[in-house]
């Protein structure tokens, strides 16, 4: 029998959810509605005049082979960022969880990178991989590898993926670590007594118990890689070389805030909104079935 606490009347509950509703309306629904509205116009930058073009902005975008190619780039980038930020985080959380002494220090150290702003992280990594003065590229050079992300698209992609994932590992680590602490010790001890070794216990007990957290992080990280990575890309590659690191959200930023083309930028935001919405629905429909709460 489920126990329910209910409010009497409507006023108090409405009052309590009002702040959240207002924030959502002002900061999410209103801008989203405006983006949809603007995507049907070609405005001039100063807002002096605006020409209605119907779906013109969308046909302009989809007739551009470089825009269509950005979908592929985005897919590669997002998958890599999600994997590169979740797997190391899980590994670090498991390792830190086994520590008896000093886990607080490790924890703090591992959370630190999250405090670094994306653009700053971008500059940091760019500096390490700078083709001329970078520490890493220098070591690669001594090994006989000529690092040049300025002209090599694959290397540029690798660099923006690492830079985007790095700070994210901390965030994911925090969630994994908390989830690991919540795994009942008795279950693990029972398995250990039955002779299950660490990795077996991990695969058959811990990982399934972590599945709600993993699922949550999967959704959040995909959204992150789609929306919040333009700062890193802007500082490291500017979308280049050629178009090898131009992901959808970077194009939204570049066309809107550098190119002043608000119509196209809005249309791109709307497309991105649909893509991410669709992805989230798919995740909830198919992946969530395998999650045990």
């Amino acid at each position, binding site marked *: 029998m489920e126990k329910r606490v209910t409010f009497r009347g409507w006023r108090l509950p409405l009052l309590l959810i009002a702040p959240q509703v207002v924030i959502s309306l002002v900061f999410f629904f209103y801008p989203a509605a405006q983006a949809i509205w603007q995507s049907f116009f070609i405005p001039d930058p*100063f807002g002096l005049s605006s*020409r209605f073009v119907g779906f013109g902005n969308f046909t302009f975008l989809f007739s551009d082979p470089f825009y269509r190619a950005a979908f592929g780039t985005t897919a590669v980038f997002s998958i890599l960022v999600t994997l590169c930020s979740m797997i190391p985080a899980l590994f670090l959380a498991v390792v830190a969880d086994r520590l008896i002494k000093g886990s607080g220090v490790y924890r703090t150290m591992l959370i630190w990178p999250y405090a670094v702003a994306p653009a700053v992280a971008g500059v940091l990594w760019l500096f390490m991989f700078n083709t*001329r003065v970078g520490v890493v590229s220098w070591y690669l050079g001594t090994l006989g590898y000529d690092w040049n992300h*300025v002209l090599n698209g694959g290397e540029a992609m690798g660099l923006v993926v690492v830079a985007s994932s790095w700070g994210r590992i901390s965030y994911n680590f925090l969630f994994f670590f908390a989830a690991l602490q919540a795994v009942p010790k008795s279950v693990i001890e029972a398995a250990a007594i039955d002779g299950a070794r660490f990795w077996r216990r991990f695969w058959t007990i811990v990982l399934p118990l972590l599945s709600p957290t993993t699922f949550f992080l999967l959704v959040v990280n995909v959204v992150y890689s789609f929306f919040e990575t333009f700062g890193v890309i802007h500082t490291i590659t500017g979308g*280049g070389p*050629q178009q090898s690191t131009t992901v959808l959200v970077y194009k939204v930023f570049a066309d809107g805030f*550098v190119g002043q083309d608000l119509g196209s930028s809005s249309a791109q935001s709307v497309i991105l909104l649909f893509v991410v919405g669709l992805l989230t629905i798919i995740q909830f429909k198919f992946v969530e079935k395998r999650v045990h709460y």
Partner: protein
Amino acid sequence: MKKSILGALAAATFLSPVAAMAETEVQFWHAFTGRLGELVKEQVADFNANQSDYKVVESHKGNYSETLNAGIAAFRAQEQPHILMVFEVGTATMMAAAGAIKPMHEVMADSGAAFDPGAYIGSVKGYYTSTDGDMLSLPFNASTPVLWVNRDAMQAAGIDPDTDLSTWQNVDAVLDQLKAGGEECPLVTAWQSWIHLENFSAYHDVPFATKDNGFAGLDTELALNGPAQVAHLTAMGEWAKEGKFIYTGRRNEGGANFRAGECALFTESSAGYAGIKSEAEFAFDVRPLPYWEGVGNAPQNTIIGGASLWVMEGHEADEYKGAGEFLSFLSSSKIQAKWHQDTGYLPITAEAGEATRIAGFYEENVGTDIAVIQMTAKEPTANSKGLRLGSFDQIRGIIDEELEGIWSGDKTAQEAMDSAKTRGDALLRRFEAANR
């Protein structure tokens, strides 16, 4: 003369308490930090100290793009500054925004401040002048590309550092010698589109875009896939393949390599002077930008990069008067000559250049006048007056991408420039649609 200054001082002393209250504020948004920011602050303080009717308030709003964005956002919120610094790439955007800007010639006529359009150097002001010959904004910082030479590197490769490098034919031969002499970075560049396409086209008197490079109408199309440009980029692509031209990035990343003494030749803005002078631990000199002998009408003149000051619409008459006075002050010879000598930017008036020469600056700092000569030696043509293209920041991005295709060997110069034209034209058509 002395008397009038004394008189003015006396008047200022008597009047200042009253005047201070009646001071009209003029907002000035710019994009300069560091040394340049300090110099701008100095100019503003100087203006404010020398009269008491107006007070110019300067604020730094980020880099060029950010400053333009701040200005646009402020205009939308009806909180625009009186004077906004806009880089040359944003010129067409500002010109098309007739309701957002107040053309400089109008501001000056209304304010009654001293203003002689003839005093400004033609190839500098041309960029910011309407087809009717009216100045729309005040050129503030203008530079033009030149060739920087690391003399020590030339010597190390067994080449006479005074070798004639005025043509690309000569440079081509020198690059071979540098490579043979063990130089790992014979040639590096900054701002590839600006130097090797935009200025290249003007310098060889071939069009970069139709309709007088966009000056004569919004229905302009790119013409950067012409034979002259393609031949130059093909040569550079060859150099890149053979390790004679090293690509370091889209902006001025190459400057770090050159200043560290790692590269022999460097095509970069004349305003790179301050940085090179303070950091280079080798003998360097500056030469005119090379041209291809026999191509077009080279050497024509090169064009500028940098920013100009735009006066924005929507303010009171007396505030415009203040803005006019300030722009007039900035154009004065004394201010301009100092700015030119401090920064390596071009003087915007012929008189300021002359004052600098008379002061002996060019003799003490050899080569600092090359940019001025290169810009002013010939009367600009329709191909060398400048560029006026909408969405030009984005078009430069496209050009950068396509050039990277050439440097990496993925595309031929013709393929890359054809693609740049197709993609750039699509943006020009959008800009035309938005501003019709």
